[in-house]
């Protein structure tokens, strides 16, 4: 059995406790402020008139969205691809589902310049490391204009998984 004096002399746990306790508040802050705690602004953005969209031809549409970014409000620009499909439309995100580079049109489909993933005209992966088809975005019509719901998806996941702030 340890004598009382030896027990008292066990200073290492004390030093460790001190360091741990000292670093704890900042560690907690780093972890809990990964949630920005604000998603009040709408993620629907205007993607231009539907008139120019053709059946089965993907067209890039640039859209602007106002996003609450912690203590700021930012105006962000994004590109999506849209086409007419029968009576409705189809919109895909230009963000490659592999690591998040932006895909470009390549023939009838798409190609990602970062790791050479190729996608067919339906957005399905043909070859390369992309783990899933290009992510579909919700759309709706408002007075002849296409509105798109901008959402980010988890890169690298096997299925579309929306990311919430």
């Amino acid at each position, binding site marked *: 059995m340890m004598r009382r004096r030896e027990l008292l002399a066990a200073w290492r746990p004390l030093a460790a406790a001190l360091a741990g306790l000292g670093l704890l508040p900042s560690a907690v802050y780093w972890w809990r402020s990964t949630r920005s705690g604000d998603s009040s602004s709408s993620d629907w953005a205007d993607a231009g008139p539907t008139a120019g969209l053709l059946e089965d031809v993907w067209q890039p549409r640039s859209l602007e969205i106002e996003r609450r970014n912690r*203590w700021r409000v930012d105006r962000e620009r994004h590109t999506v691809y849209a086409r007419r499909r029968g009576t409705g439309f189809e919109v895909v995100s230009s963000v490659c589902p592999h690591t998040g580079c932006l895909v470009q049109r390549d023939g009838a489909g798409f190609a990602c310049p970062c790791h050479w993933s190729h996608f067919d005209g339906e957005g399905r992966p043909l070859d390369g490391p992309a783990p899933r088809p290009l992510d579909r975005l919700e759309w709706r019509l408002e007075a002849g204009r296409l509105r798109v719901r901008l959402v980010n998806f988890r890169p690298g996941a096997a299925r579309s998984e929306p990311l919430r702030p």
Partner: protein
Amino acid sequence: MTIVARLREISAVAGLVSLFLLVSSGFGLGAGYVASEREAFDSVLFLHRQGADAVFLRSLHHWLASVLVFCGALYLALSFLEGIAAGRRAVFWLSGGLFFVAVGFCFTGFPLPMDQNAYWGMVVRFGIVETIPLVGRGLAALLRGGATLDASTLPRLYTLHASVLPLLAMGLLGALLSQRPGEPAEGRRLHRLLSLCLVLLGLAYAFAAVFEAPLEPRADPADTSYVPRPEWYFLWLYQLGKLLAAVPWVQSLLVPALGLATLVAAPWIFTTSFRARLLLVSFAGVAWAGLTGLALLQNRDLPARPSYEQALRSRAEGLYREECQSCHGAGGRGDGSQARAFGLDCPDLTDPGLWEARSDEQLRLAIRDGQGADMPAFGEKLDSEAIEALVDLLRRRFRPARR
């Protein structure tokens, strides 16, 4: 151990614990801070709204800065009193260097929140630096990034605060620790010191949990009414500057130079007489206390400095009186003189049904964009902060208590 030696040890341990906690809380604060004069205040305000644990970090950082300065000064005075300065010159000088670094931390950290206090304090401090003969202007320009405050000022101060000075402090601490303490700290003694550290840490946490670091309104360079006042540890120097206003370099050059010279020469001052050393330390203490007391006395009648929240509230109250009351009425019942005179459709803001039907966001939009035929849009006139403050005021004043 004499009482002086024990006190010296406690002040050294408290200083080191403060330094450690200042660095560790800085890790957290740095993750949510932007050193830009446009965004700094908003980022600090955001932190304040993030909740108690975030405010705790800032409070800890804020109060411990004072503790560090206090412990440093106390340690140096007690070391000198005890005669350590003569026996262990290197330890004394290195501690003195560390103390100056601590003051540097305060100087560079003070402006970072960019509230009124930070901004005007920074203006005054740079003004004082400018009065140093010959080098003042150059030094101020070097710290400030030019002849006036501009976009590079905060990045420079932040770099000094969070990168250059910590490196300096680390170097000095390393040199200090390699000096080998008088008696080797082992076993029970080390255990006792570490226990003391834990107790001090607990005290610091308890204090920071109870007393919130102040945050004043956003810096307003056009506000002529604001009277900046220095932190308590600079009050004596500030008072001295007021007394010797005709010779500003006494405050900016002579006093710091004298302090530095005293620190360097301390190992050779009154080495043989404890009584003479005691007299000198007492004199310094009395001079400090006298000047500080005089400053506090003279500042008694200066206007109080409202916190951000207080200022926002009174702004909202003023806005309600000027912009809203003529229709909505002082009691919020929609019975203001205009509403009655013109028979306007003005809701009763004390109606529980209204509060149930509308979210804060809807109220914000109603103020910003107008509502119905009679309520004008205020989006052009009021910024989003004012609108939010108004919604807050309506909620506090008119929302009936929930049953």
